[in-house]
């Protein structure tokens, strides 16, 4: 596709922290106010400049669980995995910084009218919650499998919101599982997914979580002949297509940009 001057979607915005609290072991939830809220679509992301250490120059790419255009707020849940997210967890209400967004291409509303299956692992849950709310707003029904290593790491508020989004459909199922069985059923999300696939038919699978989990989800979906979208994660330099650092290898041998072509890809096209 030819680029034009109008192809650029990412802009620079200020944001102000409304709240920033720990919500699970190693996981925080931040709500911030920013004009970007009106522009974000589910599955997209923002690149946040985190104050506190001028020697760490790169922004931190963050997905979100909800962008409220009316309130002008965005809610992100994030795992503290490195220095950038550690400093992010130290931001207090009223603190301000800048972000770049909207970045990337998000979830596509699956074709058809049938049920959709959502599969979330670990900190992949927030963008999956955004997908659930997108589906609910479109009047679509869905089931969800949510997994974590152990119960203490599961972001419970997101699971509650996911159940709420699913509540319009009495037949919907939300299955929680943990690797060690400390909450919900014991086992991997792919085990629960396989059981649901055996019982019910789905129009599409949408997934976000650790790469090894998404590879398993993609394999199961492909085996069942169901279209699957996966939201990928990469180390990024910029988030808006300037540096070519966040490549994703595709099955056809080509390479795509996670920040521009993704982060949501057709799982069947990705070289897992």
């Amino acid at each position, binding site marked *: 596709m030819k*680029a034009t001057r109008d192809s*650029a979607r990412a802009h620079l915005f200020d944001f102000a922290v409304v709240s920033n609290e720990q919500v699970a072991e190693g996981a925080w939830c931040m709500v911030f106010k920013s004009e970007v809220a009106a522009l974000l679509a589910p599955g997209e992301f923002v690149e946040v400049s985190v104050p506190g250490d001028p020697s760490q*120059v790169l922004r931190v790419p963050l997905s979100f669980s909800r962008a409220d255009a009316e309130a002008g707020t965005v809610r992100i849940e994030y795992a503290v995995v490195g220095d950038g997210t550690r400093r992010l967890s130290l931001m207090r209400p009223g603190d301000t910084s800048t972000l770049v967004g909207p970045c990337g291409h998000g979830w596509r509303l699956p074709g058809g009218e049938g049920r959709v299956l959502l599969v979330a692992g670990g900190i992949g849950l927030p963008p999956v919650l955004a997908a659930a709310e997108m589906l609910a707003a479109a009047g679509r029904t869905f089931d969800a499998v949510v997994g974590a290593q152990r119960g203490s790491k599961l972001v419970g508020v997101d699971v509650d919101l996911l159940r709420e989004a699913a509540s319009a459909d009495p037949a919907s199922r939300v299955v929680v599982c943990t690797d060690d069985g400390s909450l919900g059923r014991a086992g991997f999300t792919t085990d629960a997914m396989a059981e649901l696939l055996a019982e019910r038919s789905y129009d599409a699978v949408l997934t976000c979580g650790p790469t090894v989990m998404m590879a398993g989800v993609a394999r199961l979906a492909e085996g069942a002949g169901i279209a699957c979208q996966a939201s990928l994660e990469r180390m990024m330099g910029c988030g*808006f297509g300037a540096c070519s650092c966040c490549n994703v*290898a595709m099955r056809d041998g*080509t390479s795509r940009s996670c920040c521009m072509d993704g982060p949501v890809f057709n799982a069947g096209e990705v070289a897992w």
Partner: protein
Amino acid sequence: MVSNVSMAVNLGGIHMKNPVNTASGTFGHAWQFEGFYDVARLGAVTCKGVAAESWPGNPAPRVCEVSSGILNSVGLENPGARAFAEQYGDYLGELSSRGCAVIVQAVGHSVDECRRSVELLDEVAPWAAGIEVNISCPNLARGGRLLGGTPEDAEEVVSAVRPLTKKPLLVKLAPARVGEIARACEAAGADALSLVNTVNAMSINVHTRRSRLSRPTGGLSGPAIHPIAVRMVWEAAQAVSIPINGIGGVATGEDAAEMILAGATTVSVGTANLYDPAAASRVLDELEAWAVEQGVSDINELIGAFEC
């Protein structure tokens, strides 16, 4: 800002309305920055390097963060010169007509590949104000040593591509032996020099004992290399009479001013574009404010005005 200082400069035949350029590989193909500011404000932009045929680049991860900089191992992924012109030519032609010089960059893994990419770019990018040839790639035809790592090798590449275009020819140098190599490039017909490229470096995850990139080494860029780059621009400026485009960790107007005082005619903003997308536009404003503060009527008066 509006001042009475003349900011126009001439980079080896590339006429720029101000000295601010962008470093190849940190600015996409320029359109990505139109959401942050009017890109046509800049004196020039330098596009990501392209080869005659597409290159896949290296596997992920291609980037990691270190103190005051980043390491990358993108491996010059590019779609090839024809696809590049097809996808971005209309926009870049329009940018050029808006008064911003567009510099395209040619890459190759051998002297012959460099020749083919310069030849193709000359054909498919009529809107380009100049062609920069990157001689910091590994020469796969010669065991992977740098294409232009010695004065002899640099002279061979530049002599090979020089006759293939009438456009101003820039040569982008690796950060080693810059004085000697600058002289060799000038002798072979280069119109201007861009320096420096990234500094070969390593970062190891001590927990996994693995590289933080998909390869053992990568290129270090960002504020960490700025003082090294200033020193190398100064050395090169003393060695040659052709103009220099200074690159390396420029994130502020003061950084750009240092480059100009050390002898650069123009300055490219690089890694800062990634984390501060409006950086190049801000650097331009700050550079102009500095020229006003210095009391000159023309920015050219400050080129090489460093006093030891």
